[in-house]
Protein backbone atom coordinates (compact mmCIF):
# COMPACT_ATOMS: atom_id res chain seq x y z
CA UNK A 1 0.00 0.00 0.00
CA UNK A 2 1.38 3.36 -0.95
CA UNK A 3 1.13 6.39 1.30
CA UNK A 4 -1.43 8.02 -0.97
CA UNK A 5 -3.60 4.93 -0.85
CA UNK A 6 -3.59 4.90 2.97
CA UNK A 7 -4.43 8.59 3.02
CA UNK A 8 -7.46 8.02 0.77
CA UNK A 9 -8.62 5.18 3.05
CA UNK A 10 -8.35 7.47 6.09
CA UNK A 11 -10.31 10.21 4.33
CA UNK A 12 -12.90 7.64 3.23
CA UNK A 13 -13.44 6.34 6.75
CA UNK A 14 -13.67 9.85 8.19
CA UNK A 15 -16.28 10.78 5.57
CA UNK A 16 -18.19 7.54 6.14
CA UNK A 17 -18.27 8.08 9.90
CA UNK A 18 -19.48 11.65 9.44
CA UNK A 19 -22.01 10.58 6.83
CA UNK A 20 -23.64 7.72 8.74
CA UNK A 21 -23.36 9.42 12.14
CA UNK A 22 -25.07 12.57 10.92
CA UNK A 23 -27.70 10.53 9.05
CA UNK A 24 -28.56 8.75 12.30
CA UNK A 25 -28.62 12.12 14.04
CA UNK A 26 -31.14 13.47 11.48
CA UNK A 27 -33.50 10.62 12.28
CA UNK A 28 -32.91 10.59 16.04
CA UNK A 29 -32.92 14.27 17.04
CA UNK A 30 -36.15 15.47 18.60
CA UNK A 31 -35.45 19.04 17.60
CA UNK A 32 -36.05 19.73 13.90
CA UNK A 33 -33.47 22.53 13.96
CA UNK A 34 -30.71 20.18 15.11
CA UNK A 35 -31.85 17.57 12.59
CA UNK A 36 -31.49 20.12 9.77
CA UNK A 37 -28.01 21.08 11.00
CA UNK A 38 -27.06 17.38 11.09
CA UNK A 39 -28.29 17.04 7.50
CA UNK A 40 -25.88 19.84 6.50
CA UNK A 41 -23.04 17.77 7.98
CA UNK A 42 -24.29 14.73 6.08
CA UNK A 43 -24.38 16.65 2.78
CA UNK A 44 -20.84 17.94 3.27
CA UNK A 45 -19.42 14.49 4.04
CA UNK A 46 -21.20 13.18 0.95
CA UNK A 47 -19.44 15.93 -1.01
CA UNK A 48 -16.15 14.45 0.24
CA UNK A 49 -17.22 11.11 -1.24
CA UNK A 50 -18.01 12.82 -4.53
CA UNK A 51 -14.55 14.36 -4.59
CA UNK A 52 -12.97 10.94 -3.99
CA UNK A 53 -15.03 9.62 -6.93
CA UNK A 54 -13.66 12.47 -9.12
CA UNK A 55 -17.01 14.23 -9.38
CA UNK A 56 -15.72 17.72 -8.68
CA UNK A 57 -18.60 19.64 -10.21
CA UNK A 58 -21.27 17.61 -8.43
CA UNK A 59 -19.42 18.05 -5.13
CA UNK A 60 -19.27 21.82 -5.61
CA UNK A 61 -22.96 21.93 -6.58
CA UNK A 62 -23.82 19.80 -3.56
CA UNK A 63 -22.13 22.20 -1.14
CA UNK A 64 -23.34 25.38 -2.84
CA UNK A 65 -26.93 24.47 -3.72
CA UNK A 66 -27.84 21.75 -1.26
CA UNK A 67 -25.93 22.56 1.91
CA UNK A 68 -26.21 26.26 1.13
CA UNK A 69 -29.47 27.27 -0.50
CA UNK A 70 -31.85 24.38 0.16
CA UNK A 71 -30.87 23.99 3.79
CA UNK A 72 -31.17 27.71 4.44
CA UNK A 73 -34.74 27.47 3.15
CA UNK A 74 -35.30 24.54 5.51
CA UNK A 75 -33.92 26.50 8.46
CA UNK A 76 -36.16 29.48 7.63
CA UNK A 77 -39.26 27.29 7.59
CA UNK A 78 -38.24 25.56 10.83
CA UNK A 79 -37.77 28.97 12.42
CA UNK A 80 -41.19 30.03 11.10
CA UNK A 81 -43.03 26.92 12.23
CA UNK A 82 -41.17 26.63 15.54
CA UNK A 83 -39.04 23.76 16.70
CA UNK A 84 -39.77 23.59 20.42
CA UNK A 85 -43.27 22.11 20.26
CA UNK A 86 -42.07 18.98 18.55
CA UNK A 87 -43.76 15.64 19.05
CA UNK A 88 -40.94 13.20 18.53
CA UNK A 89 -40.86 9.66 19.83
CA UNK A 90 -44.30 8.76 21.06
CA UNK A 91 -44.09 6.61 24.15
CA UNK A 92 -42.58 3.17 23.96
CA UNK A 93 -41.88 1.12 20.83
CA UNK A 94 -45.15 0.70 18.97
CA UNK A 95 -45.74 -1.83 16.21
CA UNK A 96 -45.16 1.00 13.73
CA UNK A 97 -41.69 1.76 15.10
CA UNK A 98 -40.80 -1.91 15.25
CA UNK A 99 -42.02 -2.55 11.71
CA UNK A 100 -40.12 0.45 10.36
CA UNK A 101 -36.85 -0.57 11.97
CA UNK A 102 -37.21 -4.20 10.89
CA UNK A 103 -38.03 -3.22 7.29
CA UNK A 104 -35.08 -0.82 7.10
CA UNK A 105 -32.67 -3.38 8.57
CA UNK A 106 -33.94 -6.05 6.16
CA UNK A 107 -33.42 -3.76 3.16
CA UNK A 108 -29.94 -2.77 4.35
CA UNK A 109 -28.97 -6.42 4.81
CA UNK A 110 -30.22 -7.28 1.33
CA UNK A 111 -28.34 -4.39 -0.26
CA UNK A 112 -25.09 -5.15 1.54
CA UNK A 113 -25.28 -8.85 0.63
CA UNK A 114 -25.90 -8.02 -3.04
CA UNK A 115 -23.04 -5.51 -3.07
CA UNK A 116 -20.71 -8.00 -1.39
CA UNK A 117 -21.63 -10.63 -4.00
CA UNK A 118 -20.92 -8.14 -6.78
CA UNK A 119 -17.69 -6.95 -5.16
CA UNK A 120 -16.00 -10.27 -5.80
CA UNK A 121 -16.33 -10.05 -9.56
CA UNK A 122 -17.94 -7.23 -11.56
CA UNK A 123 -17.30 -4.38 -9.17
CA UNK A 124 -13.63 -5.13 -8.61
CA UNK A 125 -12.24 -3.35 -11.64
CA UNK A 126 -13.10 0.24 -12.38
CA UNK A 127 -12.21 2.09 -15.54
CA UNK A 128 -9.44 4.62 -15.70
CA UNK A 129 -10.75 8.11 -16.25
CA UNK A 130 -9.10 11.11 -17.83
CA UNK A 131 -8.21 14.27 -15.94
CA UNK A 132 -11.29 16.19 -17.07
CA UNK A 133 -13.73 13.51 -15.84
CA UNK A 134 -16.37 15.31 -13.80
CA UNK A 135 -15.16 18.80 -14.68
CA UNK A 136 -17.77 21.53 -15.27
CA UNK A 137 -16.81 21.77 -18.94
CA UNK A 138 -17.40 18.10 -19.69
CA UNK A 139 -20.65 17.96 -17.73
CA UNK A 140 -21.90 21.13 -19.39
CA UNK A 141 -21.06 19.73 -22.80
CA UNK A 142 -23.00 16.56 -21.98
CA UNK A 143 -25.98 18.55 -20.71
CA UNK A 144 -26.08 20.59 -23.90
CA UNK A 145 -25.73 17.65 -26.27
CA UNK A 146 -26.87 14.19 -25.16
CA UNK A 147 -29.11 15.27 -22.30
CA UNK A 148 -30.62 18.45 -23.69
CA UNK A 149 -34.19 17.17 -23.28
CA UNK A 150 -33.55 16.30 -19.62
CA UNK A 151 -32.08 19.77 -19.10
CA UNK A 152 -35.18 21.47 -20.50
CA UNK A 153 -37.53 19.20 -18.54
CA UNK A 154 -35.65 20.07 -15.33
CA UNK A 155 -36.17 23.76 -16.01
CA UNK A 156 -39.92 23.20 -16.44
CA UNK A 157 -40.04 21.12 -13.24
CA UNK A 158 -38.32 23.89 -11.30
CA UNK A 159 -40.67 26.51 -12.74
CA UNK A 160 -43.75 24.47 -11.82
CA UNK A 161 -42.36 23.85 -8.33
CA UNK A 162 -41.72 27.56 -7.84
CA UNK A 163 -45.30 28.39 -8.88
CA UNK A 164 -46.62 25.64 -6.62
CA UNK A 165 -44.59 26.91 -3.68
CA UNK A 166 -45.98 30.41 -4.17
CA UNK A 167 -49.57 29.14 -4.39
CA UNK A 168 -49.20 26.90 -1.34
CA UNK A 169 -47.42 29.46 0.78
CA UNK A 170 -49.31 32.59 -0.30
CA UNK A 171 -51.51 34.35 2.22
CA UNK A 172 -55.15 33.81 1.31
CA UNK A 173 -57.20 36.97 1.36
CA UNK A 174 -60.89 37.19 2.16
CA UNK A 175 -62.67 36.03 -0.93
CA UNK A 176 -65.41 38.65 -0.80
CA UNK A 177 -63.23 41.70 -0.17
CA UNK A 178 -60.71 40.92 -2.87
CA UNK A 179 -63.40 40.49 -5.49
CA UNK A 180 -61.66 37.52 -7.06
CA UNK A 181 -60.92 34.24 -5.44
CA UNK A 182 -57.48 33.88 -3.88
Amino acid at each position, binding site marked *: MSAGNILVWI*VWFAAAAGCIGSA*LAVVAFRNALF*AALALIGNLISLAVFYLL*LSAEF*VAAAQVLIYAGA*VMVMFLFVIAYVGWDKDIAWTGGPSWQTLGGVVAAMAL*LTELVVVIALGATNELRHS*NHVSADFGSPASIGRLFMSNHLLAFEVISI*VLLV*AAIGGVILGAQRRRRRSAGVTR
Partner: protein
Amino acid sequence: MLGPGIAWYLAAGSAVFTIGMAGVMLRRNPLIMLLSLELMLNGANLVLIAFARQHGSLDGQVFALAVMAVAAAEVVVGLGLVVAMARRKIEIDADLLSRLRK
Protein backbone atom coordinates in the same frame (compact mmCIF):
# COMPACT_ATOMS: atom_id res chain seq x y z
CA MET B 1 -8.27 4.14 -8.38
CA LEU B 2 -6.74 4.83 -4.99
CA GLY B 3 -8.38 3.82 -1.74
CA PRO B 4 -11.55 1.79 -1.32
CA GLY B 5 -13.26 0.15 -4.26
CA ILE B 6 -16.68 1.03 -5.65
CA ALA B 7 -18.40 -1.52 -3.40
CA TRP B 8 -17.51 0.51 -0.31
CA TYR B 9 -19.17 3.60 -1.72
CA LEU B 10 -22.23 1.57 -2.67
CA ALA B 11 -22.46 0.22 0.88
CA ALA B 12 -22.24 3.75 2.32
CA GLY B 13 -24.92 4.95 -0.11
CA SER B 14 -27.26 2.10 0.82
CA ALA B 15 -26.71 2.77 4.52
CA VAL B 16 -27.68 6.43 4.08
CA PHE B 17 -30.71 5.40 2.01
CA THR B 18 -31.99 2.93 4.59
CA ILE B 19 -31.45 5.34 7.48
CA GLY B 20 -33.50 7.91 5.57
CA MET B 21 -36.17 5.31 4.86
CA ALA B 22 -36.37 4.46 8.55
CA GLY B 23 -36.70 8.18 9.31
CA VAL B 24 -39.61 8.57 6.89
CA MET B 25 -41.37 5.59 8.45
CA LEU B 26 -40.65 6.39 12.11
CA ARG B 27 -40.98 10.14 12.47
CA ARG B 28 -44.29 11.99 12.51
CA ASN B 29 -43.01 15.53 12.11
CA PRO B 30 -43.34 16.38 8.37
CA LEU B 31 -40.24 18.58 8.54
CA ILE B 32 -38.11 15.67 9.72
CA MET B 33 -39.80 13.38 7.21
CA LEU B 34 -38.69 15.81 4.48
CA LEU B 35 -35.15 15.83 5.90
CA SER B 36 -35.16 12.02 5.85
CA LEU B 37 -36.40 12.11 2.25
CA GLU B 38 -33.35 14.22 1.44
CA LEU B 39 -31.21 11.50 3.03
CA MET B 40 -32.79 8.89 0.75
CA LEU B 41 -32.19 11.00 -2.36
CA ASN B 42 -28.59 11.62 -1.36
CA GLY B 43 -27.93 7.94 -0.76
CA ALA B 44 -29.21 7.23 -4.27
CA ASN B 45 -27.06 10.08 -5.61
CA LEU B 46 -23.92 8.58 -4.06
CA VAL B 47 -24.67 5.25 -5.73
CA LEU B 48 -25.21 6.98 -9.09
CA ILE B 49 -21.90 8.80 -8.85
CA ALA B 50 -20.06 5.67 -7.73
CA PHE B 51 -21.36 3.79 -10.77
CA ALA B 52 -20.45 6.72 -13.02
CA ARG B 53 -16.87 6.38 -11.75
CA GLN B 54 -16.99 2.60 -12.14
CA HIS B 55 -18.01 2.74 -15.79
CA GLY B 56 -15.99 5.83 -16.63
CA SER B 57 -19.08 7.54 -18.04
CA LEU B 58 -20.39 10.95 -17.04
CA ASP B 59 -24.06 10.10 -17.56
CA GLY B 60 -24.44 9.09 -13.90
CA GLN B 61 -23.17 12.47 -12.73
CA VAL B 62 -25.59 14.26 -15.06
CA PHE B 63 -28.41 12.17 -13.63
CA ALA B 64 -27.26 12.99 -10.08
CA LEU B 65 -27.50 16.70 -10.91
CA ALA B 66 -31.03 16.11 -12.24
CA VAL B 67 -31.90 14.35 -8.98
CA MET B 68 -30.60 17.35 -7.04
CA ALA B 69 -32.86 19.67 -9.05
CA VAL B 70 -35.87 17.44 -8.45
CA ALA B 71 -35.02 17.32 -4.74
CA ALA B 72 -34.98 21.11 -4.62
CA ALA B 73 -38.41 21.20 -6.30
CA GLU B 74 -39.74 18.62 -3.85
CA VAL B 75 -38.43 20.64 -0.90
CA VAL B 76 -40.19 23.76 -2.19
CA VAL B 77 -43.55 22.01 -2.43
CA GLY B 78 -43.12 20.14 0.86
CA LEU B 79 -42.13 23.24 2.79
CA GLY B 80 -45.00 25.11 1.16
CA LEU B 81 -47.35 22.48 2.57
CA VAL B 82 -45.77 22.77 6.03
CA VAL B 83 -46.12 26.56 5.94
CA ALA B 84 -49.76 26.20 4.86
CA MET B 85 -50.34 23.83 7.79
CA ALA B 86 -48.73 26.24 10.24
CA ARG B 87 -50.78 29.14 8.86
CA ARG B 88 -54.06 27.25 9.31
CA LYS B 89 -53.02 26.40 12.89
CA ILE B 90 -52.96 22.71 12.06
CA GLU B 91 -50.60 20.82 14.31
CA ILE B 92 -47.40 19.84 12.52
CA ASP B 93 -47.98 16.11 12.71
CA ALA B 94 -48.34 13.71 9.82
CA ASP B 95 -50.92 11.62 11.67
CA LEU B 96 -53.28 14.59 12.01
CA LEU B 97 -52.98 15.67 8.37
CA SER B 98 -56.51 14.60 7.42
CA ARG B 99 -57.70 18.00 8.59
CA LEU B 100 -56.00 19.62 5.60
CA ARG B 101 -58.81 18.29 3.40
CA LYS B 102 -61.39 20.85 4.36
